[in-house]
């Protein structure tokens, strides 16, 4: 891969939590995907077997609300993790992910990650810390969004 791409990965949440050898191992497991604006990465309710790292572009997360249709609730950008419940839960997606700007993603098969975790506990340790960190960051951002949405004025 390009030096620039690797540099971006190093700067992302992956590089923050995975040591170089572990990051290499993850890249070995994954495949690069491109998405065009308007295309759907996965749908709400769908069972997904891959976890994704967004390297470039933007995705919107949307949820269906009866009577209101698709509500776009969050935009994800470069460096963010998508579809972690593929690894953490049964892979049922709670949102639809829609491509807004041309996107480049690393897709990694959840089963392959589980196998890697079994073989390399330290990889598992670092990978899980990364997931926890991503979740925490998303939670704070969501809370700030709520604070603003429900402001008195």
């Amino acid at each position: 891969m390009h030096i620039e791409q690797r540099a971006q990965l190093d700067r992302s949440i992956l590089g923050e939590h995975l040591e170089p050898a572990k990051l290499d191992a993850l890249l070995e497991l994954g495949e690069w995907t491109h998405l065009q604006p308007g295309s759907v990465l996965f749908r709400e309710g769908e069972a997904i077997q891959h976890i994704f790292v967004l390297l470039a572009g933007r995705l919107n997360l949307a949820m269906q609300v009866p009577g209101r249709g698709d509500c776009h609730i969050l935009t994800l950008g470069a460096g963010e993790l998508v579809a972690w419940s593929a690894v953490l839960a049964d892979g049922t997606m709670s949102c639809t992910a829609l491509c807004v700007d041309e996107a480049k993603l690393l897709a990694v098969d959840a089963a392959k990650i589980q196998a890697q975790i079994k073989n390399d506990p330290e990889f598992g340790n670092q990978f899980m810390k990364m997931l926890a960190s991503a979740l925490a960051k998303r939670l704070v951002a969501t809370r700030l969004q709520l604070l603003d949405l429900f402001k008195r004025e």
Partner: protein
Amino acid sequence: MKTLAQPATARQPATSHNPWLVHRALIEAIRPEVADVATYYLRLADTRLADNYRFLPGQFNMLYVPGCGEVAISMSGPISSTGHELLHTIRLAGRVTDAIIKLREGDSLGLRGPFGTAWPVAECVGRDVIVVAGGLGMAPLRPLLYELMGRRGEFGKVVLLVGARSPDLMLFEEEFARWRALDIQIELTVDRAINGWAGSIGVVPLLLDRLEPLNASQSVVMICGPEVMMHYAALAALRRGIAKESIWISMERNMQCAVGQCGHCQLGPHFVCKQGPVFRFEAMEPYLKYRDF
């Protein structure tokens, strides 16, 4: 006292005048902006005063409705306007602003100022400037943006990151096309989107997380908006490797005298009316985390 002689008024130092002195200002125009927000174009009635009035981006005036009270409002127009056209973008937020929004073009109110510290334009020269605006925080930043645009060649990349609750609440949105044409990169985000919204959804610090390319060591960040938003935006800037001393925010507190003598606007050792409202983030950092200090 020096001698027991006749009572005398104390001599004032040449640089000061009575800070309570209020001047009449005429409302030349009122421009509705977004819901509950309008920009008041004020002209100082005294022509000589109007000619000589100067302010810097980020400074504010105390606007006065006799019988009701005063409110501190930042100026939101270009600094070249002197005292003949002073723009104040006001949101209905309390008793005094409620009285102001009942005024019409041709009415007058009181004005004293300018007060407070300014956005440090000098610190931006030769560097990349990231301006982060949350909601009504756009208003005190607009004079800064006008300066950056007016002297565009002196600065590197200029990026404006704007957050609003929803697309219809995005202040000065109609100017963005013109600003983009003047080489200002603008990224938008809302908390709640509507159909057809092409910008991002989520809080404004996320835009700073994703900003690429970013030359952290060459960047300065100017942030204005609700306090919680400014705090998290500053933390996002720090996470991107931007130096603490390159981050500036604009604080808001209850103001009455505007000259550091009534005590209302204190935040730790700082008087927001005198050492602020524009502060270095690092000066505010020890107090921001308390929220009730």
